[in-house]
């Protein structure tokens, strides 16, 4: 872009006029017919600017000007040439370009005002805000280019996916919180009216647990000796709980007991499933 064709004059600034271009001192108001960039290409070129700051930066860089000491009159004039060109090309000109043109014109006129000799030249430089904005924009313009250079997926680096042929799609088991179960119980008890009539404390629960334990020791096929159901080491309380559990099991017809002769050994066995009974899963 350094040898672009519009830089076609190097004359001192002419601030009063805003011609389309100036060639050897003569203002030009129409696009030259022999412009050696075809208009479409020019359009592409002009569209390549990301806004007024980008265009200004381009103008400054192209001429190796110091961003901290911009010859504002010159840059303004060139800027306006481009803006006019864009209008000429009937590009949809963003309002920002015109705002910048106005700002440049304002800076230029302030630069022309005589300044008190003793004033610090830097402190009152009307270009300061423009310089700040240009620099700020330039940093991020550069940062964007740097980001573009970073090794990028699909361009500089590629992720891998190998096949997993024996993928086991095991469905995990649902998790149950004890709370959930208790919630369910309170709900179901609230629904049934039993809640009002039953006051079950720890004791019966132990008996129920013992009932389960007794049932797990016996089966429907063989008799087991009654005494084998007790664990003497548990002490008196344990024996009583087991005994109550056995009585409860008998009461509920869950076990059968047989005593062949008085004072003989008592045998216990579980009640067998009936053949024609409903098939429980």
């Amino acid at each position, binding site marked *: 872009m350094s040898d672009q064709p519009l830089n076609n004059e190097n004359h001192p600034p002419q601030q009063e006029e805003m011609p389309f271009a100036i060639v050897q001192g003569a203002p030009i108001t129409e696009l030259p017919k022999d412009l050696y960039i075809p208009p479409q290409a020019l359009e592409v070129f002009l569209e390549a600017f990301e806004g007024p700051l980008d265009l200004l930066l381009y103008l400054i860089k192209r001429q190796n000007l110091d961003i901290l000491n911009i010859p504002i009159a010159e840059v303004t004039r060139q800027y306006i040439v481009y803006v006019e060109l864009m209008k000429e090309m009937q590009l949809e000109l963003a309002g920002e370009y015109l705002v910048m043109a106005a700002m440049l014109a304002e800076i230029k006129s302030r630069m022309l005002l005589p300044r008190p000799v003793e004033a610090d030249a830097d402190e009152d430089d009307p270009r300061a805000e423009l310089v700040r904005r240009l620099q700020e924009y330039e940093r991020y313009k550069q940062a964007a280019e740097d980001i573009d250079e970073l090794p990028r997926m699909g361009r500089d680096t590629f992720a891998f996916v190998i096949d997993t042929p024996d993928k086991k799609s095991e469905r995990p088991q649902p998790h149950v919180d004890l709370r*959930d179960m208790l919630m369910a119980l309170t709900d179901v008890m609230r629904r049934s009216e039993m809640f009002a009539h039953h006051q079950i404390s720890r004791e019966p629960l132990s008996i129920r647990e013992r009932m389960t334990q007794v049932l797990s020791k016996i089966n429907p096929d063989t008799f087991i000796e009654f005494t084998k159901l007790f664990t003497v080491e548990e002490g008196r309380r344990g024996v009583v709980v087991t005994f109550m559990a056995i009585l409860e099991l008998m009461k509920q017809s869950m076990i059968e007991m047989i005593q062949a002769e008085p004072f003989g050994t008592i045998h216990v066995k579980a009640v067998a499933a009936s053949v024609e009974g409903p098939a429980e899963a």
Partner: protein
Amino acid sequence: MNEQQLKNIVEAALLAAGEPLSIDRLLALFEEGEQPEKSAIKEAISSLQSDCEGRGIELRELASGYRYQARSEVSRWVSRLWEERAPRYSRALLETLALIAYRQPITRAEIEDIRGVAVSTHITKTLLERSWVRILGHRDVPGRPALYGTTREFLDYFNLKSLDELPTLGELKDIDKINAELDLRLPGEGFAMEEGESADIVLSLGADFEPVAYD
């Protein structure tokens, strides 16, 4: 291009492709003039194959070309990458489980009696398969129905040493009362836990405030 460089390119290409690559497709990665011999590519492949020995991946020749795969030895772990989230049990299942836990040994008819609705075979089947519930025996009444009880696995899962450690129904009733009071005071609101409150009460109270999604 030396052997190592060729091998590096072939390895990276096979890993990146996401599908099996034939020798011809591997050849096509190289521009004319730098194209290696087919035999060189084959050598690179067999060298890569032997590099896989003792590792969790292998380079297999399939119908349409070569492809890296995870070995079946590691698929048990690798599959976990795509593991589905655990589903949730239905309210009916939790109620059935709770009744079996608290009222064991219990028949299906008794559960249905309390719940007021039929218990589907699916529920008892799920509980039996999970090994939380088992058939303890059969009641000596017409139909000889199965008696259900909980298992050691059930206690282990819920971190209980014995059924005694389940909160009693009495405690639950108290909780119910407390809940009712809380409902009046703090409709739909949480509450601060007092230090020293017993864990199961807190658990049960907490449950009311944390809506459980049932299927």
